[in-house]
């Protein structure tokens, strides 16, 4: 079981920031539900990799970040992008392959980036963004402005070589790099326990001389607090850290399969009982940070925003074929 839970007696952030965390979690949830709908209606090409159920991890981590901090993301990246400040309109347009998308329709749902927000791109190669995150940390250290870099990755990347190659370098060179493993329990269609030896990533990171901690990845405040400590230490030059967040994806590996053939009903039900959004709602209501009517209003606003994002993207043009040769070289 996760090692650390939130102490909810005193909340770690001011009320407006807590409401913002809640809004972002809800935005991710509704964004993913909307993408699924867009897929079912045949409004997008290809497949999508959704992260509903995992909202607390990206939102908790990004709450500890500044605008100039950078993240790299994964094939299941919509949540990270929204959490770091990505706008749902160009995201939805990118998902739908439109020229108004973040990447002018050249990246697709697996490769959304907004460099102006420090989002150095989602990545279709498992572990592929980790090197880029290490490089951003290198630049950050060189700049000396206290900027940090976060590498988001899933349990699949736990067994990729680049994780350990860069971790070794990051410890040696004291890079301001936070490795955030979002363990949703399944590497595609296989439980990660079947694929991972030893005691897991925390033990492996510690063996390399790195601070490492496991938290309940569905507890946004626990994620935030752990990330905050690691990020602030990295800003002060204390080097990298690893944060393992235990969570669960509600859907399948991608929208084309429901995720039920390799996961039991009991397991899914058990995780859904620990849904990060109602859990956070409860804390906010108890502390009167938010009123039930606020929740309803926020829900309606985000829902409307997403419906408008889809409608706008539907009307937007596809990229012109003449653009196909652009952006290969600078």
């Amino acid at each position, binding site marked *: 079981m996760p090692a650390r839970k939130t102490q909810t007696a005193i909340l770690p952030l001011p009320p407006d920031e807590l409401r913002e965390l809640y809004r972002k979690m809800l935005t991710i949830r509704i964004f993913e539900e909307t993408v699924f709908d867009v897929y079912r209606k045949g409004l997008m090409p290809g497949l999508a990799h959704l992260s509903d159920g995992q909202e607390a991890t990206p939102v908790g981590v990004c709450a500890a970040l500044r605008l100039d901090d950078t993240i790299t993301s994964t094939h299941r990246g919509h949540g990270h992008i929204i959490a770091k400040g990505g706008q749902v309109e160009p995201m939805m347009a990118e998902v739908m392959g439109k020229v108004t998308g973040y990447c002018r329709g050249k990246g697709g749902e697996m490769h959304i980036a907004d460099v102006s927000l420090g989002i150095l791109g989602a990545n279709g190669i498992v572990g592929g963004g980790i090197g*880029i995150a290490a490089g951003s940390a290198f630049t950050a250290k060189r700049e000396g402005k206290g900027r940090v870099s976060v590498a988001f990755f899933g349990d699949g990347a736990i067994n990729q070589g680049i994780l350990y190659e860069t971790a070794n370098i990051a410890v040696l060179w004291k890079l301001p790099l936070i490795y955030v493993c979002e363990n949703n329990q399944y590497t595609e269609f296989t439980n990660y326990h079947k694929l991972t030896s030893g005691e897991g990533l925390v033990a492996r990171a510690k063996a390399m001389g790195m601070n490492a901690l496991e938290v309940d990845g569905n507890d946004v405040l626990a994620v935030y607090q752990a990330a905050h400590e690691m990020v602030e230490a990295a800003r002060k030059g204390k080097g990298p850290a690893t944060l393992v967040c235990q969570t669960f994806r509600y859907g399948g590996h991608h929208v084309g399969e429901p995720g039920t053939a390799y996961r039991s009903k009991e397991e899914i039900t058990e995780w859904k009982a620990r849904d990060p959004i109602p859990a956070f709602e409860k804390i906010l209501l108890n502390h009167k940070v938010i009123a039930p009517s606020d929740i309803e209003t926020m829900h309606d606003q985000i829902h409307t925003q997403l419906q408008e994002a889809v409608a706008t993207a539907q009307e937007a043009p596809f990229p012109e074929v003449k653009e196909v040769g652009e952006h290969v070289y600078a």
Partner: protein
Amino acid sequence: MSMRELTFAQAIREALDEELARDERIFVLGEDVGAWGGVFRCTEGLFQKYGAERIIDTPLSEEGYIGLAVGAAMTGMHPVPELMFGDFITLAMDQIVNQAAKMRYMTGGQVQVPITIRVTMGGGRSSGGQHSQSWHAWMAHVPGLKVVVPSTPYDAKGLLKTALREPNPVVFFEDKVMYSKIKGPVPEEEYTIPFGKADVKREGKDVSLIAISRMVHPTLAAAEKLAAEGISAEVIDPRTLTPLDEETLIKSVAKTGGAVIIDEGYNHFGTTAELAATIAYGAFDFLDAPIERLGAMDVPIPFSPQLEFATIPDEAAIILAVHRILDGRRR
């Protein structure tokens, strides 16, 4: 211009030195490139001059440090990772092919990836099958990369300086046999050489010899011997594969009517095939004989010199190929 003779390695080192002094975003990283000065001495003295922050020894983690270099490039630095042996490029393939080459495109032009990967090539040193290969054709197969294959100290310095001012990923191939064995004039004054401009190393009118990297040298020697037979061979060095100066190749073959392409990479789906196709398309009406392709023999590079030298094109093979073309023309 005042000239002095430099070895290929000295020319590389001088380009790095000048560009490190010019642009503080540039840093060098790789295995034993620091205090040791690089296994081929290309970074000798740079650690002492620029310090451990800019001339950085890495662990033996090619994927890791090239991945790091890609991220550093995306965030404003200009890293110059060195891959000691070109064979090790396989270890960093994902970072080069899936990350560096595509980041600009996949983000719709949001980023630049100014990374210059220096990598060796070439056999002939009895280094065996994993320390002798020439993988420039692999790199030239990937959209988004620029590929440089210099043959002289002059070209190496001028092209490397251009690479270090490029906003794009460059894979810069250095034939390790040339490092100490090839010397040539290099101006004292500042100069750069643009990418995509082939160099006519020797003018001629009977046949075009297009040679890549170190193969330029046996090709020039062959041209000299052919001249004694009364055959005037033109020797062209493309210098960069991406971008490729198609015009110079096609014009030369349109003039001579015959082409031999000489490369140390494999023939099969290799540089010789691509250049032959370019020439066949562009100079079809002018060809008097089939294009001759002299690449490395399609076998793993063997250890024993007797075997190894049988796999690499040499002067004698080039002369024979020219005779085949000229005999064909007479038929």
